[in-house]
């Protein structure tokens, strides 16, 4: 945190729910009385392009943009996208990474290569990475769209506020719009939280 401002960068591709996840995080921060600004660069996000959503909260937020080298937490919804944005992190900060790979047409038609091992590249830059396959977890719960709740669950233990506030922000949305999805989202949140804990543990064992 700089000047008591927390900078969280959430990245992925259009259609993954990146902007919704950041909106939910923003609501949780507001519920705790923070000033909040949220911005994204997502011109044609609905078309599978890059989405990066910036969330800044604290006593008083001026610029809505997180500058490279100043993010406290990077949450990557896709493997290569996490790599693309990792230079936005403050040295040594934490990355929560969905290892799922979503390959764009420019790679399929052979114009570019998908990086071999984004996770290793990010770690080589000295960042702590908690990596897990959020899409797989969401599919196991029965709906790939639960991916963003899984990612929010993974953030639960890394925020400067209690996880219940975040969970409540998620469930509140579903209570209003899709009450039948409340329970499933609660499970997705817990699954993400466990995946993060397991990934953190795995990281420690690797180091040991």
């Amino acid at each position, binding site marked *: 945190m700089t000047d008591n401002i927390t900078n969280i960068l959430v990245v992925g591709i259009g259609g993954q729910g990146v902007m919704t996840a950041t909106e939910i995080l923003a609501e949780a921060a507001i519920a705790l009385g923070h000033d909040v600004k949220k911005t994204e660069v997502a*011109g044609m996000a*609905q078309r599978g392009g890059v989405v990066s959503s910036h969330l800044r909260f604290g006593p008083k937020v001026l610029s809505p943009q997180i500058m490279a080298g100043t993010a406290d937490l990077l949450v990557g919804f896709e493997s290569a996208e996490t790599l693309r944005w990792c230079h936005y992190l403050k040295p040594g900060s934490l990355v929560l990474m969905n290892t799922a790979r979503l390959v*764009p*047409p420019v790679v399929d038609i052979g114009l570019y*290569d998908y*990086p071999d091992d984004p996770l290793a590249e990010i770690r080589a830059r000295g960042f702590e990475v908690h990596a897990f396959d959020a*899409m797989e977890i969401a599919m196991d719960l029965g709906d790939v769209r639960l991916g963003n709740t899984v990612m929010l669950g993974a953030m639960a233990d890394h925020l400067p506020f209690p996880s219940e506030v975040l969970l409540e922000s998620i469930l509140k949305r579903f209570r209003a719009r899709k009450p039948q999805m409340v329970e499933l989202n609660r499970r997705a949140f817990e699954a993400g939280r466990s995946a993060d804990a397991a990934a953190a543990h795995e990281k420690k064992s690797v180091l040991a």
Partner: protein
Amino acid sequence: MAAVLPVPSATRVLLSGNEAVARAVWESGVRVAAAYPGTPSTEMLEVIATYPDIYTEWSVNEKVSLEVAIGAAFAGSRSFCCMKHVGMNVASDALMTLTLTGVAGGLVIAIADDVGLSSSQNEQDSRYWGRFAHIPLFEPADSQEAYEMTKAAFDFSEKFQVPVILRMTTRINHVKGLVTVGERQAYPSSGFKKDPARWVMTPAGASKRIPMMFERDITLRAEAEISPWNLIDNGKDKRVGFVTSGPAYMHVRESFPDAPVLKLGFSCPVPLEKIRAFAATVELLVVAEEVEPLVELELKAAGINCLGKEILPRQGELAPNVLKPAIAKLLGEPVPEGITPAAKVFPRPPTMCVACPHLGVYYTLAQIKNLTISGDIGCYTLGAGHPWNALDTTISMGASMGIALGLDKGRGESDKDKRILAVIGDSTFLHMGMQGLLDIVYNGGNVTVLLLDNRAVGMTGGQSNPGTGRDIHGDEAPRVNFAQLVESLGVKKERIHVVDPYILPALFKTIRDEIKIPEVSVIITDQPCVLIDDYKKQKPYEVIDDKCTGCGNCVDVGCPAIHVTRREKVIKPSGKEVELQFVRIETSVCTGCTLCVQPCAPDAIVHADLTKPMRLVRH
């Protein structure tokens, strides 16, 4: 878009700049609001349409939307209109005379500049319109200000009987921040008052209004000098003071917390004397304005020493990563160290959607040789990209028509066998393409027009238009019959074809036949955008691995659900080396459009066996 239905007063809510303006428009008692969709302005009207007691419409183009708002303001009602920056190019014909008549009811025009070009064909500075049209211009720096300034702009508009421009940028329109909102104040129409000397701009009438406009300039400048929107933050580090506006203000404050700053909220006319006095309190004055050096040049002309575009870029946003090094250099301080370089990762340009009906069109166009294709503005502009590389020109809304005619009439000897095509979407055609087609017909152009009717303004999120059969609220509305419309413009009946873009052989034959005929043809494709309710998903497909020969025909369709799993170089009997591309289909997102099935020679693409558990396959 979040529908913001009436919230109790004095509530703080998280709103984007667009949502904040919408809320303020509704609270200001506005009775008429009109717009044509365009990033980053679209959500303003979308959100206004969710409020009660206000007439809203998607107009056919920005000029009409402004004219509707002008009419309502003449009728004594408060009215609002919004557009993206390029929209004002279209609407400006009305604006430039509106400044002479002024308004009765308050009229606010929000113009959203796409600084940084997130979704536009150019980057232009709408602050020029304030100067060009002699009308006041407000520039909010965040959502709260967007809300407050909109309300203030209506009062101001009425007080001085002048339309007001609210100049926003993407970094205001799409940023969410906390806004304290209030309640709607009803504002009944004062009624239309007949006054031909004011409302009918003949040369005689207008020549009397022009001196009044110049008088008003003096009044407005005096207002700017004392406006509470032009405020000074006293900073203790007097080495550099800033004059700034809009989002750049927040970036300046963030970057230089101790610097004195004069923030221009009411920025046209520029409060020269206020700035002159401020300049005297600092050692160096820097104008931090995004895009053009507008304020800077006005200050220099007034003899106020300042720096601007000598040290700051003329393109893109003035974010802290741009400001900090520039000012450090100016002060002779060490430039802040560069951050770790970004990793090299492939670009991820926007793509057409899975099963988009435009895929069939571009797949077909990529197969036909000897074409020059004039494109237009919409999702289908993506046809210029890989793998189709099908568009040769794109300029502005509806321009595909006139440019195609010019390509035809201006063709050189080397192009005499080229066929000229124009590709335009339904909404763009209605916006500004119809006149161009009429011109092609009238002047005997040899152009084949592909009118891609997907029943939506796709690029901005599927809004309605006169071709969709629905109004802004989704209620039934009269629907244009495109075949009849183009026939009325003079296209021969036998030269008009309505085709299904998912049936490739028929589409190919129609295009190939029509380009051979040396007169204007119109081929209308008729399938809905996959993002709107009209689109019905079909059973998904999968690839039988053993049958795939790697020919890559399906890859040429460009559907994002098709992925290459393996490449293999082989030498053909002819000695030519070819690369085979073996594929899979992401069945979980496939909607069964059949565009990849049709060119698959070995019949390797079949309906997916949905009884098997569906897994995402990884590379």
